[in-house]
């Protein structure tokens, strides 16, 4: 056993550190230290800097304009960006580069690749994800947005919801039902749809923390070209699963880095309030520290698996549960430490972050309240804790599935609610 990184990776790390030192603004203290209204502008400038240095699309092969970094280089880059508190791209890049780009490289036609990939890279096309619907959340394959071929175009009607970064996107990849007579997983098609057209309307949703990060997207006779299908007509479910497989990878070790940093902030808060000598608070802080160490050990093990080319299996479900359940327990510890201060939050907020607070986030009660509220979302999005436990129970432990009531043609599953 050996937990050191290979020499090549450490040389790459030194290069990245130099790049960050030379390119981040003087006196850089992390995105969290920027006033909220300056963050978007910084992100745009920073993305351009990354692009000039060939550091966006790090997972794409060079032939498609990517950086073609090895797995361990991607991990090292993500670690150093996480430590510096610098974003890895713009708001829509996770969808455009990480998810759709990689999916097109694997499943797209040559024409799709040569048209879309350069535009994703340049930032001309900004993507979002059209998956969830009001009646299709955990049961995503129960989606009802319809797409019907009309000559050489698809005509799309329906509604998507929880569309993150939908308000800054101009393209959306959509899972739509194209064959209601087929079983639910078989009649779905993965479509690429331009958003700047009359049939697409984006309405922001204000979340529980009072911010607007996600949206509803309405399709009313929206149109896209017949050939803008990835993975074949009726093959959308497989494409969607392929795409979800690109969600992690490079991020395997950053979870522990981010949570360790934020735990330091919490310990500082407890110390400032004179509570590190309180036995219950100490016990809970120690539990948090241990859990962050466990994330780190799991990260090292995950990185080993990645480098050995082993597939993670149900490991993603365990990771999701570990961090999201931890996030709630530890932000509730922050609430306990704040006590009555929680009731009238003051100071700057933490910004609109779905996961742990950014580097440089102030230790204000308002920032902790933001984090506390956002922690509630962590066990819902990207597969709820209940869905993850079912995955672990069935895939890892091999427990029998529940009897299902949704077989047969989709249109017959819930008469009256049919698409």
């Amino acid at each position, binding site marked *: *056993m*050996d*937990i*050191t*990184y*290979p020499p090549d*990776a450490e040389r790459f790390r030194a290069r990245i550190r130099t790049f960050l030192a030379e390119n981040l603004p003087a006196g850089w203290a992390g995105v969290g230290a920027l006033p909220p209204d300056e963050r978007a502008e910084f992100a745009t400038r920073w993305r351009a800097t990354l692009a000039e240095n060939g550091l966006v699309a790090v997972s794409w092969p060079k032939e498609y304009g990517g950086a073609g970094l090895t797995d*361990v280089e991607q991990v090292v880059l993500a670690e150093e960006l996480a430590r510096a508190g610098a974003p890895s791209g713009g708001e829509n890049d996770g969808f455009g580069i990480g998810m759709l780009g990689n999916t097109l490289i694997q499943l797209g036609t040559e024409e799709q690749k040569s048209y879309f990939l350069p535009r994703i890279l340049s930032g001309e096309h900004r993507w979002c994800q059209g998956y969830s619907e009001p009646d299709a959340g955990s049961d995503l394959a129960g989606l009802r947005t319809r797409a019907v071929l009309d000559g050489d175009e698809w005509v799309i009607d329906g509604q998507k919801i929880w569309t993150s970064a939908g308000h800054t996107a101009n393209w959306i990849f959509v899972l739509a039902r194209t064959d209601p007579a087929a079983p639910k997983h078989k009649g779905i098609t993965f479509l690429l749809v331009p958003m700047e057209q009359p049939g697409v309307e984006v309405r922001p949703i204000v979340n529980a923390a009072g911010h607007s990060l996600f949206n509803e997207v309405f399709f009313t006779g929206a149109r896209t070209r017949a050939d803008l299908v990835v993975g074949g007509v009726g093959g959308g479910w497989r494409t969607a699963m392929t795409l979800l497989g690109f969600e992690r990878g490079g991020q395997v070790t950053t979870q522990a880095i981010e949570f360790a940093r934020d735990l330091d902030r919490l*310990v500082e808060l*407890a*110390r400032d309030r004179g509570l*590190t000598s309180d036995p219950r608070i*100490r*016990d809970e*802080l*120690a*539990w948090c*520290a*241990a*859990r962050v*160490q*466990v994330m780190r*050990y*799991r990260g*090292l*093990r995950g*990185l*080993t*698996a990645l*480098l*050995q080319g082993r597939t993670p299996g149900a490991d993603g479900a*365990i990771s999701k*549960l*570990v961090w999201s359940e931890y996030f709630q327990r530890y932000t509730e510890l922050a609430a306990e430490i704040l006590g009555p201060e929680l009731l009238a939050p003051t100071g700057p907020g933490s910004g609109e972050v779905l996961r742990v607070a950014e580097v440089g986030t102030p230790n204000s009660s308002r920032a902790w309240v933001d984090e506390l509220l956002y922690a509630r979302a962590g066990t819902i999005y990207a597969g709820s804790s*209940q869905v*993850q*436990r*079912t995955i*672990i*129970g*069935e895939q*890892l*432990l*091999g*427990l*029998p*599935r*529940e*009897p299902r009531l949704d077989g047969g043609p989709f249109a017959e599953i819930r008469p009256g609610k049919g698409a």
Partner: protein
Amino acid sequence: MDFAYDAEQDQFRASIRSFLADHADPRAADGHDGLLWQRLCTDFGAAGLHAPEEHGGGGFTPVETALVLEELGRALAPVPAWGTVAAAEAVLRLGGADVRKEVLPPLLAGERIGALALVTEADLDPARVPVRADGETLTGTVPVVPNGHVADVLVVPALVGDRVVLHVVTEFEAERQDSLDLTRPVAAVRLTDAPGTPLDEGDLDRLLDVLRVLLAADLLGTAGACLGAAVAYAHTRVQFNRPIGSFQAVKHRCAELAVELDAARAAVMFAALAAAEDSPELATAAPVAKFQAADTAVACAAASIQIHGGIGFTREHDAHLFYRRALTGAALLGSSARQREVLASRLGF
């Protein structure tokens, strides 16, 4: 970067697991199967894998020793592994050349059995140590010593003036006590003017940390066995015309435990590596591994009883044996809350 067991380690684990499946019976010989322990020592070097070969050890690392203890905890093997390994570790780390040469080879060969007369860290508190050194002899009674009644060699903390020093003792009376853990019974040990050989007053924290890791490995094995048994039963037990494992109430409880078991596995693997490399990280990794493994073992053993239903609460079923062993391991070397306090103070909270 290679944080995984290698093929040789996997093979070693598989062979000891298969041996224990054939030969270990948790109910054998009132918690002390001497013959089994002898074979584990001669065939697998179980007592001294990471001791240097000059003392009769295997020359491996604590990673391999932890693998053995994990398998013993999984099989609930009724052998004096904990006492022997703990006593040997104390002698190995703190004994002078003469003591090591005299004590270690028979212990590691399984010819003699060791015990450590220390249940928690508090037993090193001068105000509480029940044994006092008077010149070269020791007197006092230690009420709870795991496998003390079968031990030939005892490592015991004793008060020398106002300091606590570990001693090696071979003349003592031991009386087996009623024991929560039926696979690792305890005894009261009485010393009366017993000749004792003092060990060095070295780094006791470091010794305790290595022992925490090894005990965590035993707990990890117990946890895995319990979850495995619960899952297997949930497959076969049918109620309402369905295997109960298809119900989310059962499935999700198992899944939550699988998450904790995975955390314990990662923590023990890391802590054993830190012990092998004698890394400063052992100071945090050891208490993390101990409480993560202990809490997981207790939770898995409790869930196993629950999921087995009425049959899980019978004397004849093994579920309570696992629960007893898990609770005992959780108490040895200090409770989980105590481990977290150690961690908090080491992290400067």
